[in-house]
């Protein structure tokens, strides 16, 4: 059952073009030029209930815009989206009553007031019955370990402490669906793990559907079975984590340690990444040269202490995916 369906979604922004400097500033007074940017360009995908999806793409790819479209904050310029049968932007209030949203880069908590006050305000917004609310609140306080921060004004919390509270604030009303826009940005390891652990439990125990935007691929590897990769508002890849890894299938890293410096035989598809004394790192494009040939060359070149052939890290795969197409 598809919970989220986006079909041919389009969102365009008008951007003011300014040449900069005095000329641009004065010119803009007379005739301002605008250009249209398609932040989301004919994007279609569907997500089933209970999935935990990694939503990837370089900065400016349109991820946040998609999240805002799905959350009903922005109105699409073309195409349509449906979330649990609702049209998010037309039905905004009913829609956001059933979903949770966290924007990692901006706080939804009250800057000057204790966290507990924000929670109290949320209770009056969502109008859930007292018992359900209390249970949900206590559970989140325990999972996220935020009991010590409740009485402190938000401005006195560290980023990690605050982010846990943000997550709690987005989950208090037990949403069926959670949109997270870079929730782990800038967090230290324990905070990151706490956030991950919480998301995993929500997804497994309560079946909450989660769409997670992140640049932290460890998050993706730890949490997501499926990833959506977009760039320039278009879908680049939709599939399991394995498919993402397979995207780097024709590339291998070779690491070699020898007693003395070796001469690398120049072959097409071979790239020396680093070499100093007896240590050597190569990237091999297996479409152009067989890995066996490269290894044979290397073994014959000198006395080998250690040799390793590795697939590229997921980070490199993603980077090459981002850079690949215009």
């Amino acid at each position, binding site marked *: 059952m598809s919970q989220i369906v986006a079909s041919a979604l389009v969102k365009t922004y008008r951007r003011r073009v300014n040449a900069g400097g005095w000329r641009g500033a004065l010119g803009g007074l007379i005739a301002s030029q605008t250009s249209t940017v398609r932040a989301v360009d004919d994007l279609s995908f569907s997500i089933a209930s209970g999935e935990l999806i990694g939503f990837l793409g370089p900065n400016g790819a349109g991820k946040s815009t998609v999240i805002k479209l799905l959350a009903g*904050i922005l*109105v699409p310029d073309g195409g349509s989206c449906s979330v649990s049968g609702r049209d998010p932007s037309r039905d905004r*209030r009913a829609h*956001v009553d059933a979903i949770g949203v966290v924007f990692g880069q901006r*706080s939804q908590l009250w800057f*000057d007031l204790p966290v507990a006050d924000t929670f109290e*305000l949320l209770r009056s917004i969502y109008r859930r019955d007292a018992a359900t609310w209390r249970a949900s609140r206590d559970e989140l306080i325990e999972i996220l370990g935020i009991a010590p921060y409740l009485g402190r004004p938000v401005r006195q919390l560290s980023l990690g402490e605050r982010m846990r509270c943000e997550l709690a604030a987005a989950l208090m009303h037990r949403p069926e669906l959670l949109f997270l826009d870079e929730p782990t940005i800038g967090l230290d390891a324990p905070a990151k793990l706490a956030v991950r652990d919480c998301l995993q439990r929500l997804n497994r125990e309560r079946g909450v559907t989660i769409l997670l935007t992140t640049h932290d691929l460890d998050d993706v590897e730890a949490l997501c079975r499926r990833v959506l990769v977009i760039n320039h508002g278009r879908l680049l890849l939709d599939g399991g984590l394995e498919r993402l890894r397979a995207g780097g299938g024709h590339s291998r890293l070779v690491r070699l340690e020898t007693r003395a410096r070796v001469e690398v035989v120049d072959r097409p598809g071979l790239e020396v990444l680093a070499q100093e004394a007896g240590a050597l790192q190569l990237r091999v494009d297996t479409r152009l040269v067989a890995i066996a040939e490269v290894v044979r060359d290397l073994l014959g070149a000198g006395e080998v202490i250690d040799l390793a052939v590795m697939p590229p890290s997921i980070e490199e795969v993603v980077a090459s995916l981002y850079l690949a197409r215009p």
Partner: protein
Amino acid sequence: MGAYWLHCTLCFRAALSQRAAAVAGILTQLAFGELRVQVLMACYALGVAAPGMSRTAAMDYIWLGQAFLRLVPMRPDEDLADAMRTGALANDLCRPVDAYWWWWSRAIGRVAAPTLLRCVPLILLCFALGVLRPPQTLGCALACLDMLVLALLVSAAIRVALALIGDWSGGSNALAILGMPVIWMLAGIVLPLPLFPPQVQQLVAILPFRALLDSPLRAWSGDLHGSALGWAMLHQVVWLAVLVGFGRLLTRRGLTRLTIQGG
């Protein structure tokens, strides 16, 4: 309803913590009040002032005007303007609340706190110095209180509307900067409105700004009574409805063409 009320009181509480600003404000307003009183008294001494108001009534008006100065908008609603500029607006829209009521209730709390922090000490001080007379009757006091509450609601509605208009015109507060001195003038801060030339007074009576300060002040002194009091209150209520309606319209239009800045 409950959520908006709580939002308003939380904003009020958050703004109550700005005590140092209140002390600075009180000192400033004492200085400006004294300056205005001196200028006006000089006019009375020379016989230049119009016959619309007695000397003591004018003095009351000026000191009360200083006490309730914060009811007059000094700039567009800062929270809303900031939220639109930085994109924090996205968070407001992620909650199942009516955006306009949400912003308006916040603006009310944000105006009420500094107003209260300044007016109570200033009025007590003026009583102690013998420069301000208490309300003529209990009826006057109650009417004044009602009108102050209405003035607060109008003030918040103007602030929100100015922020929304600012966004409309590309995030500039040019309109606010141009408009503020006019609003101050027409609310009665610079010169008591009864001292304006009669032709101008007719226009001033229609515009919304006297609802912010002039009307409640004249209710205090008993200058407004009987049907005039009723009309002044109706003027406040009508403008409140118009401003809220206008704000809601701008909000609805704005949300359909919204872009969130800053990613």
